[in-house]
């Protein structure tokens, strides 16, 4: 590196070390002594990493202009050596998107930590909660800064595990336990694809590394995204079923990403994950972990762009998920579930933005990262606002709220900002990023996807306004809602900070440095036509919601539901995807695979063993009956045997 690195970049290891050491410290030493201290230390540690991340970002930004946003690894050490050219380094990779994610993750994480100090106050397991939260932050930072596929996978699994622990935080609630298991197993299934993708990329990367020579490691992103290497990988040709190896590998890797980012049909775990404490939903299941899939695709984007077909898969699945989830979100009554489906839908947005990008039209890449950036803030804000409401009303049901506008002014205001932001109304953050996503879809010629994007924008505005009106307008519908009062200051601070970010994030010139390829991704102005169309869709959605739910009553909504009839039920039951999974896993796998195998083992294999044992025993008994204890019987055998032996020997001669 010919450039002088600043303190933060020279000591990049601290970004991983701070949360990790804090996790160990809090989890092993502090927590048994004092739960409260555990929470405070954990929060401080995350704030420290946030500060450090900002320092890194600042240094990178000053450095970046000079180096041309070059990707580099300021710190790494060899962690695991499979064989030569297959070593795994734990390290910190610095490039625009990793810096972007570092900022997002540490910001949201520190705000959520702060918020949790208030939200989780007095809960049993306060210290445990912060331990896991710290573990999550560490793993997420490790994921974001991963310089190679393996570290990515390692941290990928670790965020999954900490997510599992946090979803199941209330582990005496069967629904929370079930949800945590579901989340882990579904993402685990997706990770199987990731793992296979790693195997394939590792194998061919290893071969290519051998051809290219030098000491490069097959798993390194810098190696894999090297144009020479990509060319060689792309040239390998057909793997199985005529699919090229690279496309196959990337589709498998994408399967991992789709699991983590809850793309259809692996989305089923995310709504259930709302069983966890609300701040957890805000951090893990809205702002950070679930975007890991998007980040993974972005990280490997050069490869995806080389393959092309894999990117199409990403795009169409993303678009479908965006629409699918948005439709479901309109019919859900649990405020967190609506937000969860909204998250799905927005993740779909990010995914299809990546999908429509290509070497020629790389705008989608920038747009996706931009949307990821803004979405993190307003979605975290929405969740934390919802948490604040739930904290006050003690219910998740939007029909049990109502009229909270006056009782919780701060929460209301911030929630309104977030709603407008996600609806894509100028000047809030969502407007800019959504606009860019739509522009990318249109610009690359994917008109169908553009149409879906526009439609989803309208639906999003509709369902978000729906919960907003239902919760904050009209009159209090229940006892809980009428006695609600504003949350403590420690919870409001993060809301306000995030609200400010939700307003200003859109003005952040992210296109300046997050871009793919040279020149093409140059920052563009607002395309007036697309902006108008997007805003129109948003306003239409809000207006429709106002018309139906603005009164605060449920009468019109029920009439509407009746009008749709069966279709409404199907959507409300989430298209029965859960039921289908349940059928497949429980009925088919347990009953037709696992149980028969267990039976087979006991009856056939073990039966075979026992049979041979029985055979031996029977033979033994047969011989045992000869053991009469009577010398004469023995004598008979002895004499007969001896004579026979003589005869045999004689006959042999």
């Amino acid at each position, binding site marked *: 590196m010919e450039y002088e690195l600043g303190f933060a970049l020279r000591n990049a290891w601290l970004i991983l070390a701070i949360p990790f050491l804090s996790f160990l410290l809090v989890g092993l030493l502090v927590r048994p002594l004092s739960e409260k201290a555990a929470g405070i230390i954990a929060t401080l540690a995350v704030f420290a990493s946030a500060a450090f991340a900002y320092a890194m970002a600042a240094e990178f930004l000053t450095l970046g202009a000079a180096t041309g946003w070059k990707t580099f690894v300021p710190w790494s050490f060899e962690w695991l050596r499979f064989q030569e050219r297959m070593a795994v380094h734990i390290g910190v990779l610095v490039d625009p998107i990793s810096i972007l994610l570092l900022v997002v993750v540490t910001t949201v994480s520190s705000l959520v930590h702060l918020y949790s100090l208030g939200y989780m106050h007095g809960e049993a397991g306060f210290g445990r909660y912060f331990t896991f939260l710290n573990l999550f932050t560490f793993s997420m930072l490790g994921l974001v800064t991963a310089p190679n596929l393996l570290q990515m996978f390692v941290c990928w699994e670790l965020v999954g595990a900490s997510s599992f622990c946090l979803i199941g935080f209330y582990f005496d609630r069967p629904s929370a336990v079930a949800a945590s298991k579901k989340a882990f197993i579904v993402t685990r299934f997706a990770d199987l694809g990731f793992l296979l993708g790693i195997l394939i990329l590792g194998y061919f990367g290893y071969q290519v590394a051998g051809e290219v020579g030098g000491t490069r490691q097959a798993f390194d992103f810098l190696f894999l995204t090297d144009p020479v290497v990509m060319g060689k990988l792309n040239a390998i040709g057909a793997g199985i079923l005529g699919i090229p190896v690279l496309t196959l590998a990337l589709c498998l890797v994408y399967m991992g990403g789709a699991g983590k980012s809850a793309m259809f049909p692996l989305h089923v775990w995310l709504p259930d994950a709302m069983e966890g404490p609300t701040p957890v939903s805000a951090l893990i299941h809205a702002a950070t972990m679930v975007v890991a899939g998007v980040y993974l695709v972005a990280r490997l984007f050069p490869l995806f762009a080389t393959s092309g077909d894999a990117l199409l898969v990403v795009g169409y699945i993303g678009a479908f998920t965006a629409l699918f989830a948005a439709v479901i979100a309109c019919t859900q009554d649990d405020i967190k579930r609506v937000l969860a489906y909204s998250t799905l839908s927005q993740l779909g947005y990010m995914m299809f933005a990546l999908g429509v990008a290509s070497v020629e039209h790389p705008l989608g890449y920038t747009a996706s990262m931009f949307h990821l950036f803004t979405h993190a803030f307003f979605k975290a804000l929405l969740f934390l606002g919802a948490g604040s409401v739930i904290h006050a009303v003690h219910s998740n049901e939007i029909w049990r709220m109502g009229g909270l506008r006056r009782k919780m002014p701060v929460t209301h205001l911030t929630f309104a900002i977030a709603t407008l932001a996600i609806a894509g109304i100028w000047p809030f953050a969502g407007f800019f990023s959504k606009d860019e996503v739509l522009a990318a879809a249109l610009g690359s010629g994917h008109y169908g996807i553009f149409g879906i994007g526009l439609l989803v924008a309208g639906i999003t505005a509709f369902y978000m306004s729906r919960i907003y009106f239902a919760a904050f307008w009209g009159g209090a519908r229940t006892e809980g809602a009428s006695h609600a009062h504003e949350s403590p200051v420690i919870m409001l601070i993060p809301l306000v900070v995030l609200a400010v970010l939700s307003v200003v994030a859109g003005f952040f010139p992210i296109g300046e440095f997050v871009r793919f390829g040279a020149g093409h991704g140059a920052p563009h102005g607002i395309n007036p036509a697309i902006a108008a169309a997007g805003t129109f869709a948003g306003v239409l959605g809000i207006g429709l919601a106002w018309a139906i739910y603005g009164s605060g009553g449920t009468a019109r909504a029920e009439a509407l539901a009746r009008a749709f009839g069966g279709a409404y039920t199907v959507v409300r039951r989430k298209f029965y995807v859960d039921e289908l999974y349940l059928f497949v896993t429980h009925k088919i796998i347990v009953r037709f695979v696992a149980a028969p195998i267990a039976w087979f083992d006991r009856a056939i294999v073990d039966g075979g063993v026992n049979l041979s044992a029985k055979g031996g025993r029977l033979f033994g008994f047969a011989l045992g009956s000869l053991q009469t204890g009577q010398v*004469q*019987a023995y004598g*008979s055998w002895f*004499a*007969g045997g001896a*004579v*026979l032996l*003589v*005869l045999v020997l*004689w006959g042999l001669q």
Partner: protein
Amino acid sequence: MNGQAASTVFFYVFAAVSVALAVATVISRRILRAAVALMGVLATSAAFYVMLDAEFLAGVQILVYVGGIVILLVYAVMLTRSSELIEDRPSGRRRGAALAVSTLFFVAAAGAFVASRFETLRPGALTVSGTTEIGRRLLDQGSTGYVLPFELISLLLLSVLIGGVVIARTNPDKGEDAK
């Protein structure tokens, strides 16, 4: 019928008697009767010894075997309970097995003898007086003498005598245990 022919006939007659008595010994259900039959077998054996020019042995056979051993057996039989004097017939399976084994043995042995062509051997003339020679050899200390086995046998007989007395002696304590 000359002497040779007479002794030949005697051989077959005695052999038949001997075998018949032997069979009676092993299948008779009355022990006492079996003992008498055994006595007969041993007596015919004495006759065989005479035919084989072993007069001394014939005498020993009569004195020791018939006169001593069998009488001892008879005494033992007398000592046991009368119900034991008539024994149950052994099971058919066992008799079958025993018959098979003994037949097998006989076939094997006879087959071996036939195959060995012993009939070519002719009895040679006895060069020495059997009795004198036996006496001499038994006490001969040379390499062909049997004085050591003879002494050992004597010791054996002595220890058996003592042992028999010790084992069979009524032990009051043991007697109590038995009850």
